[in-house]
């Protein structure tokens, strides 16, 4: 499974990378960690004429936290996100999710930008960024733009990224410490892509669920915001009937792929179970908060 022939360029700057992308007119790919891209080349599922390596652009690998929120450079590696005290203390959902990503060795190289650009439907990171209403900062020949996560992830392995654009940063709005949250996924083995997963957070206002954000992954062609499920929970007390109703709606709202490993019926049932357990786990944090 040797890689197809290609030319290699090392980008000296983001602008340089963009210029090269523009030059190749869609026939070049950005390589950062390479943990998703290289296997695709090995299987010859992609055969770009060139790879543009942005891996040395240290400016893209910073983590910053301020009143505006969390800003993570696109080249930040999983292992650095995992080790970040700022993220552990201030963005528990993201911190929890990272531990589920692939394996130790992959986390040493894989980047958050790479994961978002790849947009695997069962990946953890797009789901968390979506659940946190994040924005993806993208730079191209036409300048810089900020794309809402929901607009960025468009379909199976498909994003809003144009041929001459590079993700430079991911911004998450400030995390409200009052939030109850949970991250749960089910896979056959540790580190596998999830057969189904859920990332969620909400607040409790007058003992009712408020501003719920429920995102399913592994259960559609991309991470999905489950609006109908959110609506079924919002403004309601988390009684068993409410949860059951939300679970039932969620099972219909998702769109699991046909896949010999896990047929749609199984994924629907599984997702419902994960959702229910995650809701209970999140509510359990409430008791912790209150005590």
């Amino acid at each position: 499974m040797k890689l197809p022939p290609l030319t290699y360029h090392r980008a000296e700057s983001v602008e340089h990378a963009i210029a090269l992308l523009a030059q190749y007119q869609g026939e070049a790919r950005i390589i950062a960690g390479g943990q998703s891209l290289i296997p695709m080349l090995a299987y010859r599922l992609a055969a770009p004429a060139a790879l543009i390596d942005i891996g040395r652009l240290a400016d893209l690998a910073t983590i910053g936290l301020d009143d505006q929120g969390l800003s993570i450079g696109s080249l930040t590696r999983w292992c650095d996100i995992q080790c970040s005290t700022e993220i552990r203390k201030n963005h528990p959902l993201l911190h929890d999710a990272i531990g589920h990503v692939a394996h130790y060795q992959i986390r040493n190289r894989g980047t958050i930008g790479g994961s978002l650009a790849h947009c695997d439907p069962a990946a953890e990171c797009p789901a968390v960024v979506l659940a946190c209403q994040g924005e993806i900062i993208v730079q191209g020949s036409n300048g810089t733009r900020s794309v809402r996560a929901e607009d960025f992830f468009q379909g199976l392995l498909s994003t809003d990224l144009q041929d001459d654009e590079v993700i430079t940063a991911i911004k998450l709005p400030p995390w409200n410490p009052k939030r109850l949250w949970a991250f749960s996924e089910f896979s056959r083995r540790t580190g596998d892509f999830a057969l189904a997963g859920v990332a969620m957070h909400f607040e409790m206002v007058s003992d009712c669920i408020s501003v719920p954000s429920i995102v399913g992954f592994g259960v559609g062609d991309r991470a999905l915001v489950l609006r109908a499920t959110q609506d079924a929970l919002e403004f309601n007390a988390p009684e068993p009937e409410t949860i059951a109703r939300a679970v039932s709606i969620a099972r219909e709202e998702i769109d699991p792929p046909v896949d010999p490993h896990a047929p749609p019926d199984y994924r629907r049932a599984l997702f419902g179970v994960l959702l229910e357990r995650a809701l209970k786990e999140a509510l359990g944090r409430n008791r912790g908060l209150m005590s």
Partner: protein
Amino acid sequence: MTVSHNNYVGRPIPRTEDPRLLRGKGCFVDDMHRPGAVHAVIVRSHMAHGHLLAIDASRALSIPGVCAVLTAADIKGEIGVLPFRIAPLEGTEPFRQPVIASKRVRYVGEPVAIVIAESHAIAEDAAEVVDVSIEQIEPVPDVTAARSGQSYLFEDQRTNVASRYQIGRGKAQAAFEKAAYTRREQFSVQRHTAMPMEMRGLLAEWNSETEHMTVWGAAKVPFFNRKVLAGMLGLPNEKVDLIELDVGGAFGVRGEFHPEDFLVPFASRHLSRPVKWQEDRREHMMATNHSREIYCDVEIACSSDGLILALRAQVIADLGAYVGTSGGILASRTGQFLAGPYRIPDVDLDILSIVTNKTPAGSYRGPGRFESSFFRERLFDMVARDLGIDGLEFRRRNLLTQGELPYDIGQLVPYEGPTSYECGDYLAVLQDCANAIGWAEKASIRGRKIDGKYHGLGIGCFVDSSGAGPKENAILRIEKDGSISVSVGSSANGQGIETAHAQICADQLRIPMERISVFHGSTTLLSEGFGSFHSRSMIMGGNAIVAASINMIETLKACAAKYWGVLPSNVVYEDGHLRTHGRILLSLAELACAVDAPIEAFGSFGTKMKPFGYGSHAAHVAVDVDTGHVEVLDYVAFEDVGRMINPMIVHGQKIGAIVQGLGGVFLEHLMYDDNAQLLTGSLADYLLPTATDFLNIRAVALDLTRTTRNPLGVKGAGEDAIAPVAGVIGNVIADALT
């Protein structure tokens, strides 16, 4: 033959192989580099069934660095077919595989051409643009389609049933007619395979001056494969050598003669250049033998108090597109071992081997045992429940007792004579196993929901043979420095024979083990050898080394006698020294230097009387019915393996085999669609156990009863532990959900 005992056999000696492997100084075939070597990539059929119309290599040949694209047309004379090495079943000859497709393709992955280029990457670039025209024939994706008659893989045979025979013992029909209780069930095991970490590879070098072919990368049965290759190349055996290097796992699938074992050497001779071929993982999944896909319709007859009277079964093996070198091993051994270690006087078997448009299937660790144990042990638990008898008690009533052994099992495979289970205490080992899992103590949790999960206990018993095949040969040589070189026909694939064989030799010659080096497998070492399969390396190779060692002592005495000019009866051999007249002493080094001819001794051992190992495994699981996840909380294995040459190596085999078995139960599946297209193409699809999956395994190897079927008193230990795993897990999950 009297076996000596001294210092090493029976002790957990650290392995001789380890230092080089740990330092990264092993030599696996892809580590080898030969000057001037070019690289081969095999072009494979993308269709499961079709007429091979044309191969257009023009685009491929125009790529710089491409040397050649060879097809069936380049082979002069008849296209060779892969022979049967074991388990030949009557009437299956027409279903053998040609070394390359010429007119028809029968599975996705079947070789149709071989591209040779200056680098592996260029060869792959070229292979991608070789245009293969195939006119589709209706594919046969499974045994049901195979038996429907809508499409035949071999037109002139007018059937996809390559073999069918009935075999048995006693009078099952009569037993069924009289039985108070019967039950019939259908079971199956999904297609999966060994998946060793090193894929297959070969480096072939044709020397046109000496007209000699050398092939590195041999494994399992190099001598047999040498004969096959020599025949296909039209060369005498002595002009072909197969060299065994370090081998990254075999488990039965690597080392059998596959098409590439001809195509790569053929290419080397054709081009007069060394040719290297290294299989990649995607290719391995479609090109290396599959296994385990067996269906069983089984019926049991019992008395009302749970004594088994008879078994009858139809066994169907889905062999894939061709009957390969493993012959009919899968279906035949499933039938043979179906009755297991139990007192079942009447057995009636209908055994079918069917071809379908999938990768050919062959032996994988314990072929037929993993499958048959599942069918039998699962059925037993169903029966026990029907009759209101605890599963453990049901087995106690039906296991053969020590007094009933040896137990004649009759002739249950057509290519071997009747055989018998030998000594053992099946009941004692079953009880040990039950105690270890806590069968009595944990009775109350069975079927109970605890912390959201259903708990269960399961148990299963098995018996397995080892040491099949012809004899084995060994040659000992005393080197000038007094060290001993042992050349043995056994093959190494990670099971530690360099250590275990040295232990045996050291004890026989009563010298320190460090003075012994073991060389294995390659055809350059011996004139004839027979390799490693069915756990025979200790039984055959080990005993051959004993014989050679005994002969060596006599040879040394005669040699020293001649040197001193005394009668051999006046010479004594003592711990690496020769002595005469009570005082004159010679070391092995001194003697070796003093004489001209190398001091060598030959030894051989063979037997048709296979020893039978046996045991019981049990498990405790917690099942999450909401997700389907099964957590193996505890898994215990108790086996009577008799004498252990190296208990550490034996234990390692047990743990490895159990984890492989658990992978086969929970994770591993080679999946095909309705067009017989292989859907499993990567290790993200084919799930193998990892470190986090099965942490709670205990394996106890007992030296309870010794076989008398070979001088060392050893049984094979490599395969047994995989046999009962599926039956135990099937039972334990059913127990949890009951």
